[in-house]
């Protein structure tokens, strides 16, 4: 009995190593037993692999044998095998989204003008995420597409309507202007120092 157990171990090691299907012939040769005995041993092993605590199986294909995982393990394996890609909204997507939210309806060209960089990728991603959508066409040469935020956008930010967007007051913009002036003054000193 122990002799058979040892043969089982060898067959397991062979199938594990080969990965591909291995013919009954080859297995029989390796364990130095006749085909019938080998077949019986493998059949016996297959039964035990069927048990609930085993995640791999031996399958027979055309007189060859191969190890493979059980179907019910697929989802678990996927979880481990899959490259974990943490999905986040990148800063550039957020930036683009905020421009669209506040300036809508807006064309891609206008977005690019504000951001100073091409924005195809960002706009496409935001469409893919269902956060923005086409809301019409501008009455201008080429009739460029106008973009606006979607219902999903409202839902995701807990707004009933776009009126709930925090207001960017004119005073705030004025204040920025002043600050900018001050900064330029400061900046000037800083840059002059370096010259």
């Amino acid at each position, binding site marked *: 009995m122990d002799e058979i157990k040892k043969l089982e171990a060898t067959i397991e090691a062979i199938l594990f*190593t080969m990965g591909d299907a291995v013919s009954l012939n080859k297995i029989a040769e390796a364990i130095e037993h006749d085909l019938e005995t080998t077949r019986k041993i493998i059949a016996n092993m297959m039964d035990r692999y069927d048990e609930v605590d085993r995640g791999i199986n031996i399958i027979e294909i055309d007189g060859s044998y191969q190890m493979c995982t059980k179907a019910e393990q697929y989802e678990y394996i996927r979880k481990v095998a899959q490259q974990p890609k943490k*999905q986040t909204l990148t800063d550039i997507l*957020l930036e683009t*989204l905020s*421009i669209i939210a506040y300036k809508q309806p807006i064309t891609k060209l206008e977005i690019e003008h*504000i951001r100073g960089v091409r924005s195809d990728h960002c706009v496409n991603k935001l469409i893919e*995420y269902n956060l923005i959508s086409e809301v019409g066409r501008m009455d201008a040469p080429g009739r460029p597409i106008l973009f606006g935020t979607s219902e999903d956008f409202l839902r995701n*930010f807990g707004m009933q309507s776009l009126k709930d967007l925090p207001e960017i007051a004119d005073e705030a913009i004025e204040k920025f202007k002043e600050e*900018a002036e001050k900064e330029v003054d400061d900046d000037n000193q800083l840059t002059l120092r370096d010259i």
Partner: protein
Amino acid sequence: MELEYKLDAFNGPLDLLLNLIDTNKINIYDIPIVEITEQYLVYVKNMHEQDMDIMSEFLVMASTLVSIKAKMLLPRIGKPDEEEEDPRAELVERLLEYKKYKYASFELAKGQLDAERLIFKPSTIPDEVKNYVEEVNVEEILADVNLAKLYDIFTSIVRKQNDKIDPIRSKFGKIKREEISLEEKVNYIYSMLLELNEIRFSHLLEEQSSKLEIIVTFLAVLELMKIGKIIVVQENIFDDITIRPIGESANG
């Protein structure tokens, strides 16, 4: 006696020395330096080694041995009871250190022999699993984004827009193009980096008011890279480029 002197039989001068010590059954703590030096030199002389690099290593050791020999032959000056450092001490230490790892390498080799008999299986992840891209859960990626953040981002964009207008110059009737020197820009970017420790390339460009200035900024970044003052990192294609200083203030 005639010996086939093969250099690759020894892993270096220390190995050769150890071998001489072993074959002569010498106490490593009390090396008869005269005899060993002699034997060592015979060996080296008989090496038909073409590779000067290897040869020179053996010659360095030869000169070390000769100098130890000389020190030992010199008459001792000073009181006889004074502890004097053995001229061989440093060499003995090196030999022992080397022997230690040589011994360890035999032990490792034994482990390797056992481990060699274990067979691992290559990964067999099906392509459809490997390339499976989970659908983006928008709610999840927006989890730490709220209206306030969106507001902040937009106001900062407005601010940048205003900066670009350059209120001071726009107050003059005419804008005169000023000379922008590369050196100036290099200094400016570098001092900014030292202060902030990290800037985004896009941020640098946003500050610029003219095409010429953008070009000079770009050249300045290239220059800083060339002289090894900064490194630039881009995580993914189309991502913003991050610039960091190398050296004194690189504490990140």
